[in-house]
């Protein structure tokens, strides 16, 4: 005999343990060492999806429909696989917009509409309160059943226990206390409750282990394994038909159940709260993608075996409710502690759901229903100095109200269909929110009016086709209602417009979704969204593409910093308000003095902080109370914001292109810079060389002039000799300067060229005559080899003479003194004329062959004696030949003499005259 006090003590101890875990986790969170910041805890907390309706109800469903209970868990598996696409987007948006509930999300998406938020809250409350009642009923009933251990037949007074003896009431109050303690500890901008999440994750483990323990016991303790269990069931014709779907579940119901549960996993308020608001890190979704379905698989694998076990053990219609098999089977087998454990598992399933649901609902009710009314401008409450406490009080009162409402509903509805069939009906209610949210995050065209129309239409159809018939079956409405109002058969709520043959849920889902999505899309497309709505739509839909900074533009008002600070203080307290403003000031490098005007970004930040605390719609109301003149957002600005995402992309591509170009340009510049440095060095060399070259003649001119000046009585011969030197040096100086100017002129392209057809034979003859004296002075002979017929060349005659003279005088200078031989040879070559000037001098070393064409570099060395000259003759000659389109080069080896050659292109006339 299981004593009542034992059950009570164990239950109390279990709930005490929850308090302890939550307390510890909160402490850890305050210390900055989060207990829940990992994917596994996130996945486990998502398993709040499995309520006592799963824990006890699945077996009950399986006992009549076989695997018909499974779509409720297959749907979430499919949805969570899309979590990385859908849920992550909702999480990202919520984080950025500081959204803390489902109602807030819808409200914020459609222009912070108070009306929409309120409507979503109403739908959620109407849909969820009976669901909470269902959990309380499970706690109450299983407690009564367990007390009658080991008698498994339900006691006659089930569900009519006196209120004060009802464990469900105390459980409800304890849970309200838990929720108030850990769900409304303080008002902050994130609304995250680590203690609560840790407790929920722990509850998920407890219910899974308890259910698996019962499953294993039934399969291997009572029966000889799965094979034996199913073989016995197979032998019973009443049971073996549960092997298939055919009797209980139609395929289309199966599809609708899958769709319904796919939506429920996102839009049940508790799921939204756990999955989105309590999410610590988006990346935890990765673990949840496989761990959460795995959890669901594990908790479902023994459902069918337990159902068959119960049916075989107690017989079909044997007086034991299939919904209690999980508890009844261990009891019937006299497994006292297992039965107690199973009860605790059921308790954990119920309490987890109630706690999170209460937090979610109280946030929604206080933020979208109560506060917007309390905080109106005309309200006297809105004038109070401190409002944070008020908000928390509203939350706490809501929590107690919701749980008592649930309890009251459970006491009123009792065993009627209005309670026991409520699970899927709840799902269908929250599914009505899906089009507004999913449409809102993937479709920019959805408008506030569209969402409103969809929600109203879907909710109305839900009431008509699902809620009212359930109430009618519970005798709360006249039963004739099911035959259509006023007997109009076409309007029968369970076969609307004559659509027959679907089960209740599929029928209601079909019509409500048709109405909901239809109205949402139609009204959205018919109307024209306001600029603010378009702005919000872009913020939601493009959340992954949008830089943060853009958000601020939606607020176009101004207020003093002091006003905003006062506003924050009223809700968050002075310390948090100061800190928030300081953070903002630091991040934007602003000195926020109280009298300064706040810019749009600061106003926006304040609104976001308040949104976290009191919801989007309320935050807009209170911020509007201190901000002057909020100008509506102009269409132009919205277009700008909408275009921003694409612009950002375009900019980034442009930037990439620019940066590539820059790199190329930089490389070019670096090369040019090196070249410039080289040229600069050359120029310096040139200047220092030329200075040196100029100083040499100047020095000797000056020296001899001074001698003449100082010695008036110098012999005439000496004087003449000195004056000769001075004249020579002056000539040399003049020549040098002329050549430098000449070279500079040619190099800079400023020289004037008199191009005409020139006969090179004449040039050579003239040059030879001009240098004849030079050759005879040195005792050298000059031989000319001029062929009779030569083409004319196109050139500047005087310049060619200059080159020729230079080459000949060089040859005269370098040929062997005494018996030098210089030969000049002309010949036609490659459409032009080639001139060779060959001497029999010492030759030029290979390493000097190009150097002699540099400025001021002369052949020879100290041993052979420094030859006379300026060192500019060859550079100038080469420059002239190159300018005339020819080439000048030298061939030589030491001791073999040197041959200077150049070519010039043939002239026009000659070229035309040639055969």
């Amino acid at each position, binding site marked *: 005999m299981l004593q009542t006090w034992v059950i009570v003590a164990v239950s109390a101890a279990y709930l005490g343990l929850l308090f302890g875990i939550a307390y510890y986790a909160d402490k850890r969170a305050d210390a900055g060492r989060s207990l829940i910041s990992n994917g596994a805890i996130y996945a486990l907390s998502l398993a709040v999806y499995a309520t006592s309706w799963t824990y006890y109800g699945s077996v009950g469903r399986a006992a009549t429909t076989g695997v018909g209970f499974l779509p409720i868990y297959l749907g979430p598996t499919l949805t969570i*696989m899309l979590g990385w696409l859908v849920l992550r987007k909702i999480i990202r948006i919520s984080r950025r917009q500081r959204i803390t509930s489902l109602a807030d999300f819808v409200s914020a998406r459609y222009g912070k509409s108070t009306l929409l938020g309120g409507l979503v809250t109403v739908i959620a409350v109407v849909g969820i309160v009976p669901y909470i009642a269902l959990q309380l009923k499970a706690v109450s009933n299983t407690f009564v059943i367990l007390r009658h251990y080991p008698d498994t037949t339900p006691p006659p007074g089930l569900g009519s226990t006196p209120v004060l003896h009802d464990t469900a009431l105390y459980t409800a109050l304890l849970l309200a206390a838990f929720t108030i303690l850990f769900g409304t500890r303080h008002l902050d901008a994130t609304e995250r409750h680590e203690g609560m999440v840790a407790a929920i994750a722990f509850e998920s483990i407890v219910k899974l282990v308890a259910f698996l323990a019962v499953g294993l016991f039934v399969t291997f303790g009572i029966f000889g394994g*799965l094979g034996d269990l199913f*073989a016995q069931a197979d032998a019973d014709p009443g049971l073996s038909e549960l092997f*298939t779907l055919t009797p209980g579940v139609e395929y289309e119901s199966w599809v609708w159940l899958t769709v319904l549960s796919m939506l429920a996993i996102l839009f049940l308020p508790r799921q939204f709260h756990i999955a989105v608001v309590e999410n610590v890190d988006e990346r935890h979704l990765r673990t949840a993608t496989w761990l959460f379905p795995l959890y669901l698989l594990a908790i479902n694998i023994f459902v069918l075996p337990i159902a068959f076990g119960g049916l075989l053990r107690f017989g079909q219609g044997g007086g034991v409710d299939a919904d209690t098999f999980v508890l009844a089977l261990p009891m019937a087998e006299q497994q006292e502690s297992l039965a107690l454990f199973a009860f605790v598992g059921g308790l954990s399933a119920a309490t987890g759901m109630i706690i999170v649901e209460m937090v979610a609902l109280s946030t929604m009710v206080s933020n979208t229903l109560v506060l917007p009314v309390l905080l109106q401008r005309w309200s006297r409450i809105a004038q109070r100095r401190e409002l944070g406490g008020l908000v928390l009080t509203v939350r706490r009162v809501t929590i107690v109200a919701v749980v008592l409402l649930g309890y009251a509903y459970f006491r009123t509805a009792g065993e009627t269909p209005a309670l026991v069939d409520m699970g899927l009906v709840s799902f269908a209610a929250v599914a009505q929110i899906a089009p507004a949210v999913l449409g809102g995050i993937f479709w920019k065209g959805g408008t506030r009016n569209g969402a409103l129309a969809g929600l109203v239409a879907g909710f109305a159809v839900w009431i008509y086709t699902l809620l009212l018939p359930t109430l009618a079956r519970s005798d709360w409405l006249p039963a004739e209602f099911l035959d259509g109002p006023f007997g109009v058969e076409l309007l029968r709520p369970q076969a609307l417009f004559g659509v027959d043959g679907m089960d209740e849920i599929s029928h209601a889902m079909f019509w409500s979704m048709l109405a909901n999505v239809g109205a949402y899309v139609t009204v959205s497309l018919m109307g024209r969204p306001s600029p603010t709505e378009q702005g919000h739509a872009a913020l939601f839909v493009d959340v992954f593409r949008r830089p943060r900074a853009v958000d601020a533009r939606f607020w176009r008002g101004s207020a003093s910093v002091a006003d905003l600070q006062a506003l924050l203080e009223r809700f968050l307290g002075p310390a948090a308000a100061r800190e928030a403003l300081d953070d903002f000031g630091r991040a934007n490098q602003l000195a926020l003095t109280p009298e300064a005007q706040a810019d749009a970004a600061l106003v926006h930040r304040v609104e976001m902080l308040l949104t976290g605390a009191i919801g989007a719609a309320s935050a807009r109301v209170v911020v509007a109370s201190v901000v002057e003149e909020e100008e509506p957002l102009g269409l132009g600005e919205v277009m700008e914001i909408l275009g921003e995402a694409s612009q950002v992309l375009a900019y980034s591509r442009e930037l990439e292109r620019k940066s590539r170009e820059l790199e190329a340009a930089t490389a070019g510049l670096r090369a040019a810079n090196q070249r410039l440095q080289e040229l600069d060095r050359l120029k310096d060399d040139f200047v220092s060389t030329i200075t040196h070259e100029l100083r040499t003649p100047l020095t000797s001119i000056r020296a001899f002039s001074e001698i003449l000046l100082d010695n008036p009585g110098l012999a005439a011969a000496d004087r003449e000799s000195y004056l000769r030197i001075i004249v020579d040096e002056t000539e040399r100086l003049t020549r040098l300067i002329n050549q430098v100017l000449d070279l500079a002129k040619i190099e800079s392209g400023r020289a004037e060229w008199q191009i005409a057809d020139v006969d090179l034979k004449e040039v050579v003859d003239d040059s030879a005559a001009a240098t004849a004296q030079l050759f005879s002075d040195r005792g050298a002979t000059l031989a000319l080899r001029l062929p009779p017929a030569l083409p004319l060349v196109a050139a500047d005659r005087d310049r060619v003479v200059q080159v020729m003279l230079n080459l000949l005088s060089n040859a005269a200078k370098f040929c062997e003194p005494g018996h030098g031989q210089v030969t000049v040879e002309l010949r036609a070559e490659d459409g032009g004329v080639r001139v060779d000037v060959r001497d029999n001098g010492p030759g030029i070393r290979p390493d000097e062959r190009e150097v002699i064409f540099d400025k001021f570099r002369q052949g020879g060395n100290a041993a052979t004696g420094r030859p006379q000259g300026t060192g500019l003759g060859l550079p100038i000659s080469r420059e002239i030949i190159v300018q005339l389109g020819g080439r000048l080069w030298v061939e030589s080896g030491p001791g073999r003499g040197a041959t200077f050659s150049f070519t010039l292109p043939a002239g026009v006339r000659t070229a035309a005259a040639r055969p």
Partner: protein
Amino acid sequence: MRERSERQRAARLVAATVFGFLLFNYPILAVFDLDARFLGVPVLWAYLFTAWAGLIVLAAVIVRRLG
């Protein structure tokens, strides 16, 4: 490059989900909707849980290297 592979994985998740939806529904479901036992357990029950487990493994593999 990174964005592309991210997109590709997202596409894989969508494909896997569609695949799962097909596995769990008519008409594939009807193929296994038999009043028979396979290795001692009902065919439909075995099928659903096997397909479910397979899908979870698939999801885990795809999601393993998401950014």
